């Protein structure tokens, strides 16, 4: 069955952006286009249209210079659902240690006919660098502690799905804000869509200038939980801790962990998100993680369609710029 033209194409009109490097750059309209496109893909999936063909004949390269399981798999599957061919490159070490620079590695892979490059790198700004040097459309899959746009988009999509809107909601990001690219992207996206954002965590893990992004800063979860519609529990990144941001995991869990007692202080319909992978017993106790307020697994499946939407929109930009009829 050819289903190429069976999905709505009006949703994506107005999309002209070549790269998705971060939510800081995107307008409210662009955010809504991505979210609406994702809704459309979700609708199609629900009626069994899981294999679409718009990217047939194109190549998506997944360049992961930093370890990743869920994001890498999610992107690979998203590309396949759109019928693109994929090439995967993983390197946990520095590209320079192999004697070839990061840009040269990416250029080499691009020369194999790649149109779309999904990149994860430990260096903030790495996707921006590729955008300067490559002809391909670049999609940021996480750059250091800078941005992780698709994760924030899937968080926002999940919240919108649950509440039917973003505007007017209070979303509290809990935990390590300092080292979190997910937090930065969420703040940009949520603020543009009209949410009130609270960041809540230990003083050592909240950078002092964060309030200039228009967020409320709290260091006491119990003070803010009762007026929060959605809690996003950021993972404590043990690999980034230098051992002195907080005294012990026990104390962290006591002050900022989500458990049964805290849930009882929250709004009845509070939504609990966690970008994962979660540390059970640290940010969240198992009963809450698996409880009725949690949409952690729903986030994962939404991640797939968000990434499909992003790839599809970049494809539309590319074909339009090349003068190929869509």
């Amino acid at each position, binding site marked *: 069955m050819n289903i190429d033209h069976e999905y709505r194409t009006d949703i994506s009109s107005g999309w002209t952006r070549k790269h998705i490097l971060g939510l800081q750059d995107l307008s409210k309209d662009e955010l809504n286009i991505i979210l609406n496109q994702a809704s459309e893909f979700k609708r199609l999936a629900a009626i069994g249209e899981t294999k679409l063909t718009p990217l047939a004949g194109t190549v998506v390269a997944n360049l992961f210079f930093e370890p990743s399981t869920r994001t890498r798999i999610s992107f690979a599957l998203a590309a396949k659902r759109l019928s693109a061919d994929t090439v995967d490159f993983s390197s946990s070490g520095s590209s320079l240690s192999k004697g070839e620079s990061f840009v040269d590695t990416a250029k080499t892979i691009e020369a194999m006919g790649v149109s779309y490059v999904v990149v994860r790198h430990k*260096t903030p700004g790495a996707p921006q*660098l590729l955008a300067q040097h490559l002809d391909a459309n670049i999609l940021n899959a996480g750059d250091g502690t800078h941005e992780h746009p698709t994760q924030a988009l899937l968080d926002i999509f999940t919240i919108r799905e649950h509440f039917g809107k973003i505007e007017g909601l209070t979303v509290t990001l809990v935990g390590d804000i300092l080292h979190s690219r997910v937090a930065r992207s969420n703040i940009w996206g949520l603020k543009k869509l009209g949410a009130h954002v609270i960041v809540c965590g230990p003083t050592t893990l909240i950078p002092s200038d964060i309030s*200039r992004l228009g967020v409320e800063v709290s260091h006491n979860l119990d003070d803010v939980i009762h007026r929060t519609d959605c809690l996003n529990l950021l993972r404590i990144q043990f690999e980034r801790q230098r051992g002195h941001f907080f005294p012990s995991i026990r104390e962290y869990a006591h002050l900022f962990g989500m458990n049964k007692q805290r849930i009882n202080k929250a709004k009845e319909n509070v939504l609990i998100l966690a970008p994962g992978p979660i540390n059970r017993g640290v940010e969240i106790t198992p009963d809450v993680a698996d409880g009725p307020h949690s949409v952690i697994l729903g986030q994962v499946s939404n991640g797939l369609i968000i990434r499909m939407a992003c790839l599809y929109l970049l494809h539309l930009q590319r074909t339009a710029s090349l003068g190929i009829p869509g």
Partner: protein
Amino acid sequence: MKSILIKNGRIIDPAQNLDVQGNLLIEAGKITGLCEATVTADEIIDATGLIVSPGFIDLHVSLCEPGFEEDETIESGTAAALAGGVTSLACLPNTSPVVDDRSSAEFILLQAGRAANCNVFPLGAVTKNHEGKELAEIGQLVAGKAVGFTDADHPIENAEIMRCALEYTRMFNRPILNRPQVPELTDKGQMHEGYYSTVLGLKGIPAAAEAIMVNRDIALAEMTQGRIHLMCISTLNSVSQIRRAKQAGIHVTADVTPHHLALTDQMLESYDPNYKVLPPLRSQEHIDALIEGLKDGTIDAICSDHTPHATEKKSDEILGADFGIIGLETLLPVCLQSLIIPGHLSWSELISKLTCGPAKILGLAKGTLAAGADADITLINPDIKYILEAAHLKSASQNTPFLGKELQGRAEIVIVSGEVRYTAEKK
């Protein structure tokens, strides 16, 4: 040696409090003095529209030889100096091997003599191999003509070592040049800690990292009566502390780079490694304080902190990139852009920071156009505008954020020891 008459220039010599339209005569490598336009000389230079200044003196430049000749050599670095109007420079001992013994210092002088560009004054290491553990052979280095002591980009971490160094160098009346940054607070830092480091996800270097060591160095200078010179001051708090210390009569001096005056931490939004310097580019409030410090004499000198990195060694990714940019050839235009054009300093004030100010710190009998002084002279064209292109650069490296930017002002003719060593290309 030919006599030279520089005719009809604006002669500015802050050391003599001089700013006049006139003519200057040079004979036998020395300055004879102001004269009539009718005096005869072997060579006549028409300086109409130009400023006649003492040659610039740069307190800390990385020449990278021996050891890192792919970045810069003594020959290329001193050629870049001349093109920037710098007639004397002190070179950092951060070579391989480190300049921590007499023969290393003498090698630099030998190579500088062969290059015959500008005057070169070696700086010796404070500690052996810059390890911060044992003092280098400071007395031997003085014998090898080292004019001051520094561990270059390694701050002297241990307060006891710093105390001993300040006490020991007092014997030789030489300054210690330190780059004040507490390593615990700069570890893995990429840029100034503030709004932009938060947004960009780059680890910040707080302003306090500098203030803490400035405070310590001033306390040690007071205690030991040694001479401390603080390199590349970048924060408001440092300026306030140095101002108070000077008022209290403590022997402390300081310099600032042009790029710390011209650029803010916001530039890192581009993630261009050419904006990654140490100390990091700060925010506007710090720049305002630095300018205030230049005006009231708290900051004595402006230095390029020329730090070349070869293109092939440079990482495009900001985390892997080395700190530092080249600066000799942009020293004057960037000062013009950030200090003269906005009206913060007069020409005489700026020139003092580039000539007699640094000369005094190193105890050099230079930096003036007074009769009998060495004829080291820079003729400045203050009006010329041009786009900085890689092909213009004499330096072996091109790591500067000013490439492709429009600049104003350049050295037109540079005279060292009474010889014309550099003439700018006509544009």
